[in-house]
């Protein structure tokens, strides 16, 4: 990975993790203040089943949506590192490893769409 990519990656990871922790803390404090119980929170979480619902809940700063956003930001960090690596390999015209990055990304996406009976 080039020096520029490494520097950008470090800044991106720091920013994302800081924002994620901020959202998680904000969400937890809101949960404590609003007195939302575990089961009610899980029901709220289940309702965030579409991007539109999720974004609306974020805009209303609903506590469970804030927690979900924080978790999503943490979960997305390795995927962004993969994307940076893909760009890096593509820029070096390294087709084999660019394709490998795509394959790994595809496996991650497939894992998220499989539903067990």
């Amino acid at each position, binding site marked *: *990975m080039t020096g520029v990519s*490494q520097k950008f*990656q*470090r800044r991106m*990871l*720091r920013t*994302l*993790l800081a924002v*994620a*922790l901020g959202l*998680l*803390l904000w*969400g*937890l404090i809101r*949960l*404590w203040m609003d007195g939302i*119980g*575990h*089961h009610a*929170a*899980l029901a709220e*979480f289940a309702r965030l089943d579409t991007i539109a619902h999720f974004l609306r809940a974020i805009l209303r700063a609903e506590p*469970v949506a804030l*927690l*979900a956003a*924080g*978790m999503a930001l*943490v*979960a997305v*960090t*390795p*995927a962004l*590192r*993969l994307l940076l*690596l893909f760009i*890096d390999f593509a820029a070096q015209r390294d087709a*084999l*490893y660019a394709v*490998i*990055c795509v*394959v*790994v990304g595809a*496996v*991650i*996406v*497939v*894992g*998220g*769409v*499989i*539903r*067990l009976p």
Partner: protein
Amino acid sequence: MELVLADAGSLLDRHPLAFDLLVILGAAVAGCFGALVGLGGGILVTPLLVLGCGMDMKTAMGASLLAVIATSSGAAANRTKDSLSNYRVGMFLEVAATIGAVVGALLAALADPAWLALLFGCLLIVTAILTWRKKEDTLTHHLPVDPMSKRLRLDSRYETRDGWVRYHIQRPMPGFAVMIAAGMISGLLGIGSGVLKVVAMDSLMKMPFRVSTTTSNFMIGLTAVASVSVYTAQGFMDPLVAAPVLLGIVPGAMIGARLVTVLKVRMLRTLFLLALLIIAAQMLFRGFGELVPT
């Protein structure tokens, strides 16, 4: 003696603040000790939640996987120089590890939690043994060039105090096969399985130890995100459990990474490994207890 401190289900419902503070503190300690002894800390999160708080095994493993991602990304964010990681080896092996992780996570969704507890106990013992082995960098530039490694352009070099040192990657295909198993264990038990990855890269593929640890750190985040996608799809992600874990483990790991240069780690390492064996016994006890009801 079972180490259940509280019924977390009811604690989380009746005293969410107490639950959150307990988990934040516990995850911070896990992250700190994990960083001090060179483990991610995620391996301690599941026992903390299951044994310490009485949580459901699969929910705990989901939270642990997020903790693994956070510590992996946190370590990369704080590393000033990244000339050690071999991204070609990392990506080549990640194909196997992510496939294994998805399969492992699907198996975890179907598995009996008691069996998962037993497997986790065994894994802790293996981790303690593997972590006990003190490793030094061994020079591998004298090894022959492996034809497959040459075709995949896996050989590389890394910087030492004496300049750049070349190394030749050996046995990439057996390494690939081991990574499927490491990925499966990661998905099945909600851990990063960095120790297994390092052993495969270091002992089997003859990658220098420092290179294998930094490459493994990059890999565990990707493997964990493959499992997280399955855990989320199967409904094993609980934001009220994951949030305090993340809030504790990230600062804990950062503190641990700073303390590692100040503290005498050898003593801590011994204590940590003993603690790991005690936790392993607790997990085995719990698993057997659920399988063989009295």
